[in-house]
């Protein structure tokens, strides 16, 4: 029962009690499908108490007959005397809806209720309950207003999600805040691998979890998720779970799964309707995010090596340099040049040169930390920005990279050449604040260090501060 309905009926009971001398009342609603009276509250000597009591009414006895026909019923046990007054409420707003409310007057002294008290109590009930329609109307109005608000909020979320950093997370948080599900999970279809894979889940504490391990092949019968997606259903609701296939022009792009499993709360019909009506917009928003990510990837990442390009690096180095200065932390820069890259290109062709670049970029990506930021600076030069890292840390990483890159063997047989080539790199390092006070200085010093290695036999590493010492020798 809705809180507004309870408040209204409580006021009616209070008034009825004031006009009669009935001290104690328990209010029930009759659940017809179960033949049970479900208590909602008690009013006992001026104290309002929510109450849980279920009374089986049966379907063949005089109690049942009295309740469904709106006649009074009397019950007594020991000194407890109960008098039931049913009230049949016919809704004018919802067609064919009849609700049966039951007021139980209680005495604990073994005495009967006076006819006058019962009459007065019933008069108040029948006069005041006429206005119960107004409560229903208010509740419907509230749902309508809420739906309009949700529609507006969803529109805003869908449009803003494109411009937000971490767009998926933003979208999911927005949905969670609006609908208040216990958890929402987002799945995407990977057409090339023919799988449905998890992206994120978000729960009511706004905690976001990676569910990328949750993958299933897009084959019918393997999982209920896939079966629902491959069916033509717009939306599937199973008790506490709602499955919303995301489709654009009948093409499956993913699935949104929302559940109220933890709270064991059934999903409300108006939430289902709203989600259903926004399903195509939601799918569009998700498709847009995917496209946006692709465009971002193309414009900020090198197509061949998948490493960020110089423009992206310049943006990032400014942020990191500012952070290093602000929090007084070290920042290092590694500048890598592939040894004899021009010769490889000239001798074996650009295709082999491309393979070399891809292999080295992959090795670098695999070896660095998550916070490190690599970049294809141009040609065969690769830079790595190392936040919160001193010269010593950078040297350690550079030596590991040299070792790892030496392990790469490029087999040229697929190019029709019977040869395996080995690779090596030259590396220069500069660090903030020891070697440089500005971004330009940091780049210049790392480049100077690299130049020294290249001019001293290649295949090695030196930090700028050590280069000074070398030069001083």
């Amino acid at each position: 029962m809705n809180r507004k309905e309870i408040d209204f009926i409580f006021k009616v009971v209070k008034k009825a009690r004031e006009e009669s001398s009935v001290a104690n009342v328990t209010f029930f609603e009759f659940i017809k499908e179960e033949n049970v009276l479900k208590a909602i509250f008690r009013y006992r000597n001026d104290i309002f108490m929510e109450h849980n009591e279920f009374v089986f009414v049966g379907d063949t006895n005089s109690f049942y007959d009295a309740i469904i026909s709106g006649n009074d019923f009397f019950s007594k046990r020991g000194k407890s005397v109960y008098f039931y007054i049913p009230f049949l409420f016919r809704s004018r707003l919802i067609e064919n809806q009849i609700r049966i409310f039951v007021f139980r007057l209680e005495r604990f002294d073994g005495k009967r209720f006076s006819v006058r008290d019962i009459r007065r109590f019933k008069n108040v009930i029948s006069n005041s309950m006429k206005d119960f329609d107004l409560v229903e109307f208010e509740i419907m109005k509230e749902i309508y207003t809420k739906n309009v608000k949700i529609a507006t909020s969803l529109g805003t979320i869908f449009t803003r999600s494109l411009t937000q950093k971490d767009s998926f997370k933003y979208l999911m948080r927005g949905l969670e805040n609006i609908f208040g599900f216990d958890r929402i999970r987002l799945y995407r279809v990977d057409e090339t691998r023919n799988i449905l894979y998890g992206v994120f889940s978000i729960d009511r504490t706004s905690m976001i979890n990676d569910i990328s391990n949750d993958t299933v092949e897009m084959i019918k019968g393997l999982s209920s998720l896939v079966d629902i997606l491959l069916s033509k259903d717009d939306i599937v609701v199973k008790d506490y779970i709602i499955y919303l296939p995301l489709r654009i022009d009948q093409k499956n792009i993913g699935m949104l799964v929302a559940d109220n499993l933890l709270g064991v709360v059934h999903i409300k019909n108006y939430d289902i309707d709203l989600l259903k009506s926004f399903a195509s917009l939601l799918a569009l928003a998700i498709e847009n995010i995917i496209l946006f990510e692709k465009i971002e990837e193309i414009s900020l990442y090198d197509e061949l090596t998948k490493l960020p390009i110089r423009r992206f690096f310049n943006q990032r180095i400014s942020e990191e340099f500012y952070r290093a200065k602000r929090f007084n932390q070290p920042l290092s820069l590694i500048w890598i040049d592939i040894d004899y890259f021009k010769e490889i290109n000239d001798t074996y062709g650009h295709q082999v040169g491309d393979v070399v670049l891809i292999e080295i970029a992959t090795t670098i990506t695999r070896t660095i930390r998550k916070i490190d930021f690599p970049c294809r600076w141009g040609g065969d030069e690769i830079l790595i920005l190392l936040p919160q890292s001193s010269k010593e840390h950078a040297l350690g990483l550079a030596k590991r990279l040299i070792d790892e890159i030496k392990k790469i063997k490029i087999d040229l047989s697929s190019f029709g050449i019977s040869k395996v080539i080995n690779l090596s790199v030259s590396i220069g390092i500069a660090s903030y604040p020891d070697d440089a006070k500005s971004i330009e200085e940091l780049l210049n010093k790392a480049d100077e260090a690299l130049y020294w290695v290249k001019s001293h036999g290649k295949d090695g590493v030196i930090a700028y501060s050590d280069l000074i010492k070398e030069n001083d020798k």
Partner: protein
Amino acid sequence: MKLWILNDYNYSKYLYFKNISDEFLKEKNIKIDIEIKTRESVWESIFSFNGNKEKIADVFEVPHQWVGLLKRLGLILSTDLLCDLNSFNFFSFLKKTIYPDFSSKSFSLPLYFEAVSLFYRKNDIKKYITPTEMKDIKWNDFIILCEKLKNSSRVKDYYPLDNTNICGYITSDDVLCSVLNRNDGYFSDDGTVLEFHKDEVLSAIKDYIDLSQKKYLPLFEENFFEREFIKKKLSNMAFSFRRDLVDNEMDFTRFPDVIKRNYELVRSFNLVFSSSTEEFSEIKIFIEWFYKPENIINLAKVMKVFSPFKDDLSKYLSKKEMEHYRDIFSRGWLCDSTVVYPTFEKMFNEFLYKKCLDIVNERIDYSDFKKDLMEIKALVEYLVVSY
């Protein structure tokens, strides 16, 4: 400051808290707004979504097994911030209600606890069983006793047992008494497996439901509890978690055993403190003022329950009760307060509600019994993994 207390058939509980609120206002000049809530209603407030969220009370009473979930949802404060737990000498078995879900931080304070016993009218049953046999009665003998009592009564609406569960049907806690006869609770020790796959657990659940099916225990009756155990001619025994049935005509013993039960079921009701409260300092003052043994003992006396303070038993229990309950408390056992336990309980209660409805409608059918329980098991274990 807003305080929610759980509804109870015992009206004195509300009078007690009203009195506490009046005294607190008088002594500390802080007003407490008390609301009486059902578990269902508190649950709805917890899970109502942001748009319509009813503000949760600053302080509220919950069954102890909810504390882990409330902590996980970030809804309650650590009591480490509010008081010094070392100053309270609580029963050691209540520790897991204070530190939920294997946490090292405390998140609730026990308010009172209950322990199950079998109460019976000694004069009514002496024809069928001796006092010595009754003292350590086994489940099978208990069922025989119920059958004898039922057959010997010619009174309409007679049931050997009265149903003391306020809501009128059988709930998870009732059945747990029976499950403890055959298994150490519903879950495995690490809380990850719901042991509905075990035959002994299924039999224990059915054992308890059968009490109603065999018409030993009534269901969905009108609630007359406020006048205490008044069904003198309509029943002779009752399981109760409280001491409310103790009088001169009654005797009490342990819940009937099957072989040798390891534990005795105890359930605690605790106070928790909302993490979104704006009345932090008032809560601190309230705890310091309220959590004195005399206040807590008074509540235990009024509600006929037990004080969480270890040293208080002699202050409100008779010698005979002391003997009985000391033995029970020495093996006191509470279900774990894990994140998913309340969800499990809610699902299981829905299952039991339906089964009870089927019994009163005389359409009980056990063909889907195991299947339905296995569905609950699958959902609950999925939640264990997810949360």
